[in-house]
Structures are given as structure tokens and as C-alpha cells.
């Protein structure tokens, strides 16, 4: 119970004089002492059972809630990791494809460049000679 306080303006307004105030203070001490003694006594068996049942239920509920939140957090973390893994795999595959595409275009460009660098137009006066050279090569 709360500690007793002095009577305030409201009480004086209500007509609590010295005599009534003294009686009320004694009454309060009386009820508080009696109440303390009452709930200092061991509780009857039925009440103890009821209380322990409530406490047990409270604990069980708290444990269920705690276990639920922990497993939820673990599942969430696992799920996030899986998603991250899939995303990383996809990104790697995409990168590989990009690299392959780049490589093939690079090769084609290079070949075209080499081709253009190496090949020269033969002057028309030399054409019969070039023809002869290509014929002898085929033979």
C-alpha cells in the first residue's frame, strides 16, 4: 500500500478537522496493518494453485513468444541469405554472358581490322601477275 500522506486542501474543504483527521489517520494505519498481516499469511491451497497456474501460463506464453521471435528472426536471416545467394549467382551469370558477348565482338573486330590492314588493292596493271600467283599457289 502507499505511504500515507498529509491531508490536503481538498480534505480541509471537505471539513476534515483535527479530530476527524486524527481518526482517519488511525483508521488508515489500522487498515494498512491489517491488510499487511492478511497478505503476509500463507495463501490457501486453492489460491496457491490458481496463482501458480497463472504464473506458469505467463511463463509458458513468454517462452512461446520468445521462441517464436527467435525462430522467426533465424528464418528471416536464412531467407535473406538464400535471396542474396541467388542474386549473386544471377549477377555472376549475367557478367559471364556479357564477357562472352564482348569477347566475340572483339574477335570479329580484330579480324576485320587485320584483314583490312593486310589486304591491299592490286593495281590493275599487275592483275595478270596476281592471277598467275594465285594459280601457282593452288597448284
Amino acid at each position, binding site marked *: *500500500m502507499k505511504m500515507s500522506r498529509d491531508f490536503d486542501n481538498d480534505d480541509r474543504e471537505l471539513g476534515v478537522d483535527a479530530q476527524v483527521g486524527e*481518526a*482517519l489517520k488511525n*483508521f488508515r494505519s489500522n487498515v494498512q*496493518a*491489517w491488510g499487511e498481516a492478511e*497478505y503476509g499469511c500463507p495463501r490457501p491451497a486453492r489460491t496457491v494453485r490458481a496463482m501458480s497456474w497463472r504464473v506458469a501460463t505467463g511463463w509458458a506464453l513468454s517462452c512461446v*513468444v520468445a521462441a517464436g521471435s527467435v525462430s522467426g528472426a533465424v528464418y528471416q536471416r536464412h531467407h535473406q541469405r538464400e535471396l542474396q545467394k541467388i542474386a549473386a549467382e544471377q549477377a555472376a551469370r549475367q557478367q559471364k554472358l556479357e564477357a562472352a558477348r564482348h569477347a566475340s565482338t572483339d574477335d570479329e573486330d580484330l579480324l576485320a581490322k587485320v584483314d583490312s590492314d593486310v589486304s591491299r588493292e592490286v593495281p590493275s596493271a599487275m592483275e595478270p601477275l596476281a592471277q598467275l600467283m594465285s594459280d601457282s599457289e593452288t597448284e
Partner: protein
Amino acid sequence: MTWLMRIAINLEKDHWRNRRMQFWRHTRTNSVDLDEASDWLPSGERTAEQQMLAKEQVGHVWKAVEKLSARQRTVFLLRYVEDQELSEIAQMTGLSEGTVKAHLSRALGKVRAQLKGRQ
């Protein structure tokens, strides 16, 4: 984990509230034996005579409390035993502060009359 702590604190509060309520339930369901009730007084530094006087006063207040209507008794006990403010009592009982004051005034009138009746 803060909310888990909150649950634990609330369970503990409920436990103590229930124990306190048991006392009031006991006094409500069983008629109060005034002689037994007035015996519960902390002796403190009082003389035997002062102790007797206090016991007598407490007996008169209990007698007056028994004569109060249920609402007057509730308001009176909340104010003078549980130390609640008028606004708190109004909130708890769903009455206006003015009505709470009126009930308290009537209850105090009966207590005063009972105390004067002994003289």
C-alpha cells in the same frame, strides 16, 4: 527484448494487485468483526492510553463505514485508505469530481457524527 521485459513487469504488477485485491474482497464478502479490525494498530511510540483512544476511534470509523452506501464506502476507502487523488477516484469510478466530493462529504459527515456520538 524490451517488450518481453514489459510483459514480465506487468505480470509482477498483476500479482501484487491481486494480493491487495484479496484483502478488499475478504472485507467485502465477510462482515468485519469490529473488535478484531480495531486491534490492528501499529503501537509506535504511543502510550497505552493513546493506544486505547486510537482503537476506540478506529472502531467508530469502522462503524460509520459499515453504514455508508456502497458508493460512498468505495469513494471513502479509495480516498482515506488508498490515498487516491479526487481526479483518480473520479476516473476509477466513472463519476465526476463533483459527485466524488459530494459522496466524500456525506461519508465524512457520517464519520464525524459517529465520532461525536461517542462523546
